[in-house]
């Protein structure tokens, strides 16, 4: 009897250990491509094009130094920062107010509006790209930061509204009632009471918006060509460069530069990020 219990217990412990190690291995498998890219970015071509792949090599920053000047990467990085934060801030302000209206204020047609906004998250960007390109061209706005910021609002605002609406619905009603008794206007109550309390939700919406805008490629390809071009366009350019042959080192270096800021950002705010994802999925 006691032997049976003990063997059952060891069986359970083994299962637990297997589960832990399987998780670690899966995690490493998922990380491997990123690690490989970072390694490649510090290699010379003679270490990149080898069979078997070189694992031990003398790291060099040659690819970075040579490619950074040539491809004007710093300017594109700056453009990406401007556009990602510009679009995110506009979208958070507009989206949070609208999300609050949908969650808390009785407006005729608000339910229909909510469904429309959710549905608009399914609009393929390609359906917007052609007219945006034509209008931007005719207005002389092509290749500017502002046109890209506005274009990104087309998917960020619905996203923010949808995410924050769920957040606002869950807040206790007494908050605004108390604020309004104290003589606050509706808008005043929103900015003085609701926004500070909902800061975790707003921060996670902001993080997601910045990441989504940071990675966006289609609008950036269509609406910019030089001055306001973002870093994903540079990556696509290197990846698609068939004239100079496969420049793996450059792709790895610019790829690493694209990914590192977002990874650091994501790890710093991981709690909010994970919470935002969970909230986003449940409170549709």
């Amino acid at each position, binding site marked *: 009897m006691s032997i049976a219990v003990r063997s059952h217990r060891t069986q359970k412990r083994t299962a637990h250990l297997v589960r*832990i190690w*399987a*998780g670690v291995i899966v*995690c490493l498998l*998922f*990380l491997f*491509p*990123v690690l*490989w*890219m970072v390694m490649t970015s510090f290699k010379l071509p003679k270490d990149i094009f*080898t*069979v078997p792949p070189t694992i031990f090599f003398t790291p060099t920053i040659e690819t970075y130094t040579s490619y950074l000047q040539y491809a004007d990467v710093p300017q594109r990085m700056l453009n990406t920062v401007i556009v990602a934060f510009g679009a995110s801030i*506009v979208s958070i302000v*507009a989206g949070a*107010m*609208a999300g*609050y*209206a949908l969650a808390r204020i009785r*407006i005729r047609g608000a339910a229909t509006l909510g469904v429309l906004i959710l*549905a*608009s998250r399914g*609009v*393929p*960007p*390609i*359906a*917007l*790209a*052609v*007219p*945006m390109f*034509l209008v931007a061209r005719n207005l002389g706005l092509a290749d500017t930061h502002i046109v890209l910021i*506005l274009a990104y*609002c*087309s998917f960020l605002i619905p996203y923010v509204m949808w995410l924050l609406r769920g957040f606002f619905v869950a807040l206790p009603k007494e908050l605004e009632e108390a604020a309004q008794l104290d003589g606050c*206007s*509706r*808008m005043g109550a929103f900015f003085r009471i609701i926004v500070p309390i909902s800061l975790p939700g707003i921060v996670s919406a902001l993080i997601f918006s910045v990441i989504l805008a940071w*990675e966006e490629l*289609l609008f950036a390809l*269509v609406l910019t060509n030089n001055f306001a071009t973002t*870093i994903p366009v540079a*990556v*696509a350019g290197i*990846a*698609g460069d068939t004239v100079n042959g496969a420049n793996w080192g450059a*792709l*790895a270096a610019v*790829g690493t530069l*694209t*990914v590192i800021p*977002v990874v650091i950002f994501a790890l710093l705010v*991981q709690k909010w*990020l*994970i919470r935002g*994802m*969970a909230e986003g*999925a*449940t409170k*549709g």
Partner: protein
Amino acid sequence: MARLSSQTTTHPSRRRTHTIDLFSRWSFLTPATVILVAVLAYPIIYTIVISFSELSLATFSPTSWVGLDHYIDALTNRNFLNSILVTGVYLLFALPIQMLLGFGTAFLMNAEWKGRGVVRALFLIPMVVAPVVAGGIWRQLLDPLWGAVNWFIGLFGAPALDWLGDPTLAMITIVLIDTWRWTPFVALIAAAAMLSLPSDVFEAARIDGANWWQTLTKVTIPLLTPIIAATFVVRWLGAVKMFDIVLASTKGGPGQATNVVNLYIYEEAFRGLHFAEASAMSVVVLVITMVLTAVFLRMSNKLEEKF
């Protein structure tokens, strides 16, 4: 008379407070509405207008009305229809695989030990790799000559595979890259959802002598159904926009084998300068996407009510 005058004095002021109230309600919606009309509603309407017109490449504006011509062209264009089919195949494989792997990974991630937080944080990394970069990394890893993957499978005696050059393998590759990029996203949502499941139900199942299979099918999956449905909808909304990964890895090739519809329309419009035809195609895609999104939303809501 007195009654009448009192009515005329109170009425406008009440109307004014009503107007102010209405104004204060709508002021919350104004910024979002104005921007979305400009960058979402107007472009969609303009796309529809262009799709029925001839577009002058001199002025970049629509000129004459041509009715359904572009739609007939689009729906008889074999490459366009093929690109819809390619997108369908990609969605049909990628979404279920990502959901299964995501929930499976979440189960492994939730094992209780001191490294759990680190593992969860590391899973965030693939999720924030820009899709275009993901396509680029994987193209290097899967290169038939110099790629690490072919070298690795060669250790086990497998022949070198032309991951990006063979039509079937190229589609598998696209699904693979997309799955690598998105499984962590599903897994992190699933892990949070699984942790919030009520533990007493599992306790009850254990006391009743349920084995792990019964617990999984009779307790865990029904409890998780709403979150599975919601995650599926979120993934669907992202996956229909598939563009970057294909552009950076296969460019739609070989031939048309991985030319997803967004890439095909993009090339038609901005390489071929067939803006009007491309607009008709994007209206077709818009309609298909909207119908399917509505179906999935309805199904997801039904499932949420049922469980």
